[in-house]
C-alpha cells in the first residue's frame, strides 16, 4: 500500500454547499463501490485527513470523483484547491459493497448518495433501482449521473421541491414492496438506518449500510473511528475504516 499523489482535474460546486472533485492518479488501483479515499488537507493546521467515499471512478482515465459537503474548516480548505494542484490521497480503503444478486435497491440520503455511482460502475451488469432523498431541490446531487448509468431513479425531497414529497426511507420501503429486490444497500445519516431497520419490507432481504465516523489513521491502527456492533450476541467496537465502512444492518447497534 502507498500514499498517492493525485492531480486535481476539477473541483466545482455541484449543489448548495456541495463540491465535486475529480482526482487523477498515475496508477489507480482496483476499486470496489463503497470504499473510501483518505485525503490530506494541504496545510499544516489540519492534521487529520478527510475520509470521503469514492463517488465514482474511471479505470481507463485513471480518475476518481469525490463528492463532499463543505461543513468545516478542512472541507472549506479543500474546496479552495485549484485545478492541477496535487493532493496526497490514500486509496482504496475499507471494505466496499459488491452486489451478489441481480436486482439491487440502492438508497441514498443526502450526501450518502455520493457512494452510489461507484457501485454501479464496478458492477454495471445488474438491475438497479435508486431511491434518493434530499432536504430540498438546492441539495440534489447525482440524480442525473445515476440515470445516465441506466438506473431507475426515484427522487424525494422533504418539502417536495424536487421529485416526490416525503422521506426517502418511506419512499424506499414502498419501492422495496413493489420491486422485491435481491439486495439493499443504503447510505445516509444514521436516522435513515434506524427507520429502515424498523421497516417490515426489508425482512429477508440482505441489507447493507455504510457508516461514517470521525477517523484518525484510516487504515485500522488507531481505533478512533470504532462503532458498536452485535455479533453472535456479543457487543463489540469494530473499526469503521477497516472492518467497515459497509456493515449488515442487523449487526450494527443503531
Amino acid at each position, binding site marked *: 500500500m502507498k500514499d498517492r499523489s493525485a492531480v486535481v482535474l476539477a473541483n466545482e460546486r455541484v449543489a448548495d454547499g456541495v463540491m465535486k472533485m475529480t482526482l487523477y492518479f498515475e496508477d489507480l488501483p482496483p476499486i470496489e463501490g463503497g470504499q473510501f479515499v483518505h485525503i490530506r488537507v494541504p496545510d499544516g493546521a489540519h492534521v*487529520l485527513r478527510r475520509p470521503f467515499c469514492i463517488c465514482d471512478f474511471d479505470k481507463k482515465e485513471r480518475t476518481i470523483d469525490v463528492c463532499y459537503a463543505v461543513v468545516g474548516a478542512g472541507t472549506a480548505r479543500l474546496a479552495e484547491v485549484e485545478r492541477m494542484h496535487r493532493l496526497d490521497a490514500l486509496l482504496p480503503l475499507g471494505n466496499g459493497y459488491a452486489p451478489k444478486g441481480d436486482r439491487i435497491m440502492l438508497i441514498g440520503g443526502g450526501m450518502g448518495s455520493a457512494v452510489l455511482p461507484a457501485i454501479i460502475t464496478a458492477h454495471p451488469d445488474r438491475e438497479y433501482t435508486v431511491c434518493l432523498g434530499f432536504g430540498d431541490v438546492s441539495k440534489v446531487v447525482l440524480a442525473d449521473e445515476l440515470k445516465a448509468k441506466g438506473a431507475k431513479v426515484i427522487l424525494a425531497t422533504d418539502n417536495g421541491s424536487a421529485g416526490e414529497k416525503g422521506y426517502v426511507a418511506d419512499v424506499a420501503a414502498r419501492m422495496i414492496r413493489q420491486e422485491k429486490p435481491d439486495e439493499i444497500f443504503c447510505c445516509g445519516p444514521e436516522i435513515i438506518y434506524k427507520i429502515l431497520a424498523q421497516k417490515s419490507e426489508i425482512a429477508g432481504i440482505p441489507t447493507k449500510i455504510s457508516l461514517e465516523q470521525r477517523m484518525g489513521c484510516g487504515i485500522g491502527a*488507531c481505533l478512533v473511528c470504532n462503532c458498536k456492533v452485535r455479533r453472535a450476541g456479543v457487543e463489540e467496537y469494530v473499526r469503521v475504516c477497516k472492518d467497515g465502512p459497509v456493515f449488515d444492518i442487523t449487526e450494527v447497534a443503531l
Partner: protein
Amino acid sequence: MNTAVEIAGVKFKNPIITASGTFGFGAEYGQFYPLSALGGICTKGLTIKPKQGNPPPRATEVYGGMLNAVGLQNPGVERFLETDDKRLAQEDVVVIANVAGATLDDYIAIGERINDAHAQMVELNISCPNVKEGGMAFGVLPSSVEKVTAAVVKVCKKPVITKLSPNVACIADNARAAEAGGAAAVSLINTLSGMAVDWRTRRPALANNNGGMSGPCVKPVALKMVWDCFNAVGIPIIGLGGIASYTDALEFMICGARAVQVGTANFTSPTAAYDIARDLADHVAQNDIDINDLVGSLVLNG
C-alpha cells in the same frame, strides 16, 4: 557519523520510535514501509483484560492538532502475547510494550506478564487522560508515580520507561519520582487534557467530553518539559509531542531527548515516521555528526 542510540542497554538503530496508540501493533503501517526502518515501535496500551474503550466520537481535530478519547481499547495482554508479540519478534526493530491498569495490582500483574513477551522494554502508561479510573490518577502526584514505577520495576525483568503526563504541577518532580522508583527512562509528554465544543449543539465534540490533545500545537509545551526534565534527572528521556519532521526531532534531542516518538503525524501521513527517520539519517550523514552529541546541547540565551 552515527544515528544509533542506546537506552537502558537497548540499542536503537535510530532515535525514531512510534508513539503508543497511534500505530496499533505495527501491522497496518508495515504495509507502507518495513518496520525495520524505525528505531522502535511502542504498542497500543495493553491491559490485563481486553478493554472496549469509549463510545464514539473518539476524536476531533483542533487547530494544529487533535483530541482523542479512545479509552485504551485493546485486545488484552494475553492476546498480544499470542499474536502481535510473536509477529513483531520477526521484525528487526525494538518493541516497547505500553501497559496500563486501573489499580496498582493491575500494573504489577501486567508488568509480570510482560516478562514472557518478546518486547524488549515496557512503557508505563500512568498518564492516560481518557479512562475513568487509574491511568492518569497514578500519574499526577510524584509519590504515586514513584510507587507504581517501583512496583513494576520490582516484578518486571525488562527496562521500565515511565510515561509522564503534562497535566501536573511540576513534571520535573514527577520525572525525579520515576527515577527514584527505578525507571530506566522517562517518556514525555502524554497528551494535554482538553475539550472541543460544538457551539451549535452546545455539546463537547467527544462522547467522553474531555480528550487528550496532541499534534504540532503541543510541541512548544513538550519541548520545555523535556528540557526541564533533562535538567532534573540522570536517566534517558524519550521526547514526544507534535513531532512531524526531522527538524522537530532534532529540537527535542537538543532539549535533552535521547530518542523521540512520532504519534499524530502518522495520521497526517502514513509514512511520517519512516520519512523522519530517513531525513534524520540524511542530515546526520551530510553533517557528519553523531546524533548523541546533540542530546541536551541547548544553549540558553543569556
